[in-house]
């Protein structure tokens, strides 16, 4: 850990993101993914540069989580959604595609699952795929932190992952708005909602509307299930898998509505506190948590911090408390 050039590497990337420099995205991800000790330090510098305190408010980018079972038509949906967002005035879109499949023999095959059609000359588009499960809390931490950083520069950050249930919960820990994609005729999502396993997503999308009656029935069933849980806010939108996709205006509008409905600052600082706590536990274990007085005490400590702190800074506060407790120990 020597030299000022190193100190500035992370900070410089953070500053570039803050200024809306989209070309910093790839290097930012390279740094955030790294586990080399010097990089971890630099990553912390980067993240603190894009914390709400530094930005003078929450990051501008809308973090949208998109999840759903395999084969539900997510790739087609995303390709069309990205095109539509870019056409309806969003100047930049980042996509983080997370592959949750367990690593076999260490490596992972990425990009095979999500095949997003993209225009390579579009400078406002960034697509990155990562494998989950690299370290403890893999999907949650890596993706959350990356999305937070990119949201400083990009208008929209889409986190894409496959699955229903667990994945949906994890994505909810990282996103402002959660979209669950449902294929007509598949009962999974309906069951999840009815059984209460699933946190209610902000927007439900039924794909392949061109399947006609089946798509219509699925939409109706979802609406009924939502009503039975007392939910009136979650829109169910049917989209066709064939152009010209007239329904995408409604989808983009629903996404905007959902964001407006939320108190973004408190939602995000809540996520950061939760994230900091999860990271702390991943790092120091339950024993560490006990040493600082248990979960309740940790949450109280986090609640006393300025809500504009970044996740890393919040975690540092917990770590500092742990150090104090060790020093104070008899």
């Amino acid at each position, binding site marked *: 850990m020597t030299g000022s050039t190193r100190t500035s590497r992370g900070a410089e990337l953070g500053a570039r993101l803050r200024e809306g420099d989209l070309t910093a995205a790839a290097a930012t991800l390279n740094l955030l993914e790294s586990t080399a000790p010097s990089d971890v330090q630099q990553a912390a510098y980067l993240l603190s540069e894009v914390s709400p305190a530094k930005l003078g408010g929450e990051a501008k980018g809308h973090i949208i989580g998109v999840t759903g079972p395999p084969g539900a038509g997510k790739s087609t949906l995303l390709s069309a959604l990205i095109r539509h967002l870019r056409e309806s005035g969003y100047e930049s879109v980042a996509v983080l595609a997370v592959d949750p499949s367990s690593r076999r*023999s260490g490596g992972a095959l990425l990009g095979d699952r999500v095949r997003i059609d993209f225009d*390579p000359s579009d400078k406002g588009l960034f697509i990155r795929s990562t494998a989950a499960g690299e370290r403890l809390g893999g999907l949650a931490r890596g993706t959350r932190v990356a999305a937070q950083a990119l949201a400083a520069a990009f208008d929209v950050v889409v986190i894409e992952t496959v699955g229903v249930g667990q994945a949906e919960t994890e994505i909810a820990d990282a996103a402002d708005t959660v979209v669950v994609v449902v294929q007509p005729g598949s009962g999974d999502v309906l069951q999840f909602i009815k059984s209460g396993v699933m946190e209610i997503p902000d927007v439900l999308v039924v794909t392949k509307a061109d399947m006609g009656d089946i798509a219509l029935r699925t939409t109706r069933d979802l609406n009924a299930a939502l009503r039975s849980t007392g939910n009136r806010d979650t829109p169910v939108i049917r989209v066709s898998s064939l*152009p010209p996709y007239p329904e995408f205006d409604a989808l983009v509008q629903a996404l905007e509505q959902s964001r407006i409905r939320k108190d973004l600052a408190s939602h995000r600082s809540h996520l950061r506190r939760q994230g900091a706590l999860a990271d702390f536990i991943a790092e120091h274990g339950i024993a560490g948590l006990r040493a600082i007085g248990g979960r309740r005490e940790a949450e109280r400590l986090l609640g006393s911090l300025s809500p504009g702190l970044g996740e890393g800074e919040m975690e540092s506060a917990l770590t500092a408390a742990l150090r104090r407790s060790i020093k104070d120990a008899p």
Partner: protein
Amino acid sequence: MRTYAGHSTAEASNELYRRNLEKGQTGLSVAFDLPTQTGYDADDELSRGEVGKVGVPIAHRGDMEALMKGIPLGEMNTSMTINATAAWLLALYIVAAESQNPPTPQQQLQGTTQNDIMKEFLARGTYAFPPGPSMRLIADMIAYTVEHVPKWNPINICSYHLQEAGATPEQEIAYSMSNAIAVLDAVKERLGDRADASTMGKVFGRISFFVNAGVRFIEEHAKLRAMSILWEELGRQRYGVSDEKQLRFRYGVQVNSLGLTEAQPENNVQRIVLEALAVTLGRNARARAIQLPAWNEALGLPRPFDQQWSLRIQQVLAYETDILDYPDIFEGSKVMDGLVSQLLEKARSEMAVVAEHGGAVQAVDYMKAALVESHRERIRRIEAGEQVVVGQNRFTETEPSPLTQDAEGGILVVDPAVEAEQIEAVRRWRSERDQAAVDAALAELSRVATDESPQRENLMVPTIAAARAGATTGEWAAALRSVFQSYRAPTGVGEASAAVPGPELQQLREQVSALQEALGRRPKILVGKPGLDGHSNGAEQIAVRARDIGFDVVYSGIRLTPSQIAKSALDEGVHVIGLSILSGSHLELIPAVIDALSEAGVEVPVVVGGIIPDQDVPALMQAGVAAVYTPKDFDLSKIMGEIVTLVKERAGAPA
């Protein structure tokens, strides 16, 4: 006898055809370039480096008329190696025939279109539309030809390419039969009330196969016997066909190329002879037509001398041996019957799995993954020495070969000016035609394509109208793509099982772990296939092996432009890029990718794999390629070891 030929431009090909016809050739065999095969015009970015390369570019009616100029189409038997765009090329052929003087009505046209889309999804990669709409196009075309072009063979089901992609004999049988079922069912549905036993018999009798024969020639012969049994059974039971002639399993064959080696290539002669025996030995399952590859195919394009040698093998077999003198020599053989029933049993159970998926169209992902897995297993056995390949993994010591010293003459090069001329020509064509008529014809095509009701019209009708109006290949395909959606076929790699750990693999994994320490994150490789070349076996096996040793692998299949590859490499933060190319366009496309990378600011090593002649290697290295791999580098572990070293050297430890 025919020569598979297509030559850079319609005019040049026409000259060649006419010369061959004068020499007594009776049929035409047309090969098209990759843009024509996949539905792009020469001026499309994806066509770069591919125009006129593996066949003739046909962009519109005018090109087809020039190709067939002075050739009386009413007397010709024309075979077209065309699949995704077969309906369009047949339409152009029909229009060219009616515009000849004297005109030939479509009822008199004779010939074959390959028109087998499943093997494009599974092995060859020159598809244009998703499986469902592709099958609809095929069914429409078959229904149309049965009625209006009755002497045409609208489809040739290819199991050949499946074996090249690694299929076991039972997979080759099961997947090609399932494919045939999907086609016949679609035609039956298309014909509706008209699909009586007599019409279905006609359709059934028009379907022929194109199969493969490998060096395990006893088993391969059994495979063909099994296929003819299954085919007859299918005709009788599923489609109610009773005419013996219509029920006959008709097939042409090209013997295996996958098993030919670049090391000690003279051994390929023996292999080819044995493979030819597989399809000729027993009369009950003898091929109608045989094509033998050249002994040095793995080295580059064969010379006339090499092709002559292959022809002589057939002639020795036919005229010197007594192979044709006897009735079926395996009749009553317990061993052969046992082999056949074993294969039948395995193939039937695999067909049942495909049927469970809902048929071949729905089972594309499943079949692709199964093929990648079989191919992976085959490579593993060769690497482990369990499957002997003489001269490659055993008996590798060799005297210097007098045959390969002068191999350079074997490469045919297409003049790069051809591409520029074709681009110019297609633009001129567009500017000189009646644009309003073309627009109207394409709108009508879209309208018919959009209709998915059971009463929908036959797509051949607006396709022929668009051909007549002067639309181009790219416009026809684009109109259908915008309705059917473009499609990326499954790569099959995600499902491939992990390698069985051995000492070599373990060692590589340790090296990758060490590399990960040094890099700070897991090494990431982008495996890319630039251009229109669809031969993805090599890229898939590299992707799977890279994963097995611990790389994160970004692989999104075939047909990527240089700028797409560069953008992905940048966004994904990869440490190394592997490009695979087998179409012969490496000298155009590889430097284009490297330019795009440096423009994007990506400074990582690039390695190239594919059929790269030795004399092209210096030019690629000059362009900035770090290493070139060809079919003689069959040891994937060795390649991987070198890639790991390369990343280590180039990246160094992070600052």
